[in-house]
């Protein structure tokens, strides 16, 4: 049996076939630098990781751009919504003020002596000189609060019906109880008066 030293000394192994190609390529570029296979592997690994990192960054960049765009859209939508909300809020505020004004007028009308400037009158003048109503085409129209009491909302929503109905009922009562207002007897009186005037002529 051969000595282990000799066996190790003469130990042979078949190298991978691609090594000759690498050596041959290395010999062809005499002045060129020859990279060991491990270095090439490391370099290819580096290239692979580099490309992966670059691709990841690109994906992150693109997705961030896309998300930003969609975010802008969402923001613009949100801003539109906010604007709408602000508009709605303004309308609501306006309605609230209108209602306050009307409520103050109704309350003030309970007072039999309109000549006395009570707190409610002051509050009316303080609250608002005019109230804003929605026109036939949706446009805002400023009118006097007194005129506003004569308007009946078509949809019973603006101004709120209870206040409005209450006011209308009150006006009806005033009209019925008023002596100046036209009644069936007063109409006959007018007819008689006009007949006597004709006779006098």
């Amino acid at each position, binding site marked *: 049996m051969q000595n282990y030293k000799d066996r*190790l000394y003469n130990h042979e192994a078949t190298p991978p076939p691609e090594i000759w190609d690498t050596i041959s390529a290395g010999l062809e570029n005499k002045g060129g630098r020859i990279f060991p*296979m*491990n270095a090439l592997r490391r370099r290819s690994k580096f290239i692979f990781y580099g490309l992966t990192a670059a691709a990841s960054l690109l994906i992150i960049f693109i997705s961030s751009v896309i998300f930003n765009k969609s975010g802008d859209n969402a923001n613009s939508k949100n801003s539109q919504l906010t604007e709408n909300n602000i508009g709605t809020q303004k309308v609501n505020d306006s309605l609230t003020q209108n209602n306050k004004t009307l409520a103050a007028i109704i309350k003030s009308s309970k007072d039999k002596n309109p000549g006395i400037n009570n707190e409610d009158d002051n509050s009316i003048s303080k609250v608002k000189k005019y109230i804003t109503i929605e026109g036939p085409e949706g446009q805002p129209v400023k009118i006097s609060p007194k005129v506003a009491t004569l308007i009946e909302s078509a949809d019973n929503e603006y101004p709120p019906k209870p206040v409005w109905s209450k006011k209308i009922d009150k006006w009806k009562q005033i009209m019925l109880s008023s002596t100046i207002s036209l009644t069936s007897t007063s109409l006959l009186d007018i007819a008689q008066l006009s007949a006597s005037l004709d006779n006098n002529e």
Partner: protein
Amino acid sequence: MNEQSNHNLSESDLIKGCIAGNRQMQEILYYQFSPKMYGVCLRYSGNVEDANDLLQEGFIKIFRNLEKFRADGSFEGWMRRIFVNTSIEHFRKKVKLYNVTEVQENTIEDDELNILDSMAEKDIILLVNELSPGYKAVFNMHVIEGYSHKEIAAILGITEGTSKSQLARAKGVLKKSVEKRMNRTSGDIINT
């Protein structure tokens, strides 16, 4: 080029052809010596990837410095020396050996490692490759290649004492590994 013509080529013709830059001659020389040189590379590197690099680097050095070969020694010996130096150079890049205070090591005689003779070549290679890079280099250079401690010290940049102590430790580790392996093998035989 067929095998018949390969056999007819003398070593000097092959060398002359390689020096002239004949790629076919270089290829023949490569296929003739690469298995032996790959064995050297595997012994020093301990892994296939590094061995491949060493083989490639070594052959390129050989082809580029072939005109420096003087026919006063064997061509294979010259080649082997280049491969050993390339391996050591590669090894030195990776591992730095420090000079250690010389301590009296329990000398293990080579006879104590003769048990390795009964082992398969593949197993011996595995055991040697289990050694640390420093131990492995000194063991390979001294025991297998036949370098003196003075030469090893000069090549590795260490003192002779360090070389000796590294070798003693390498032998100790190797002996323990062999014993462990033998015990495991005998245990397996008993169990079966």
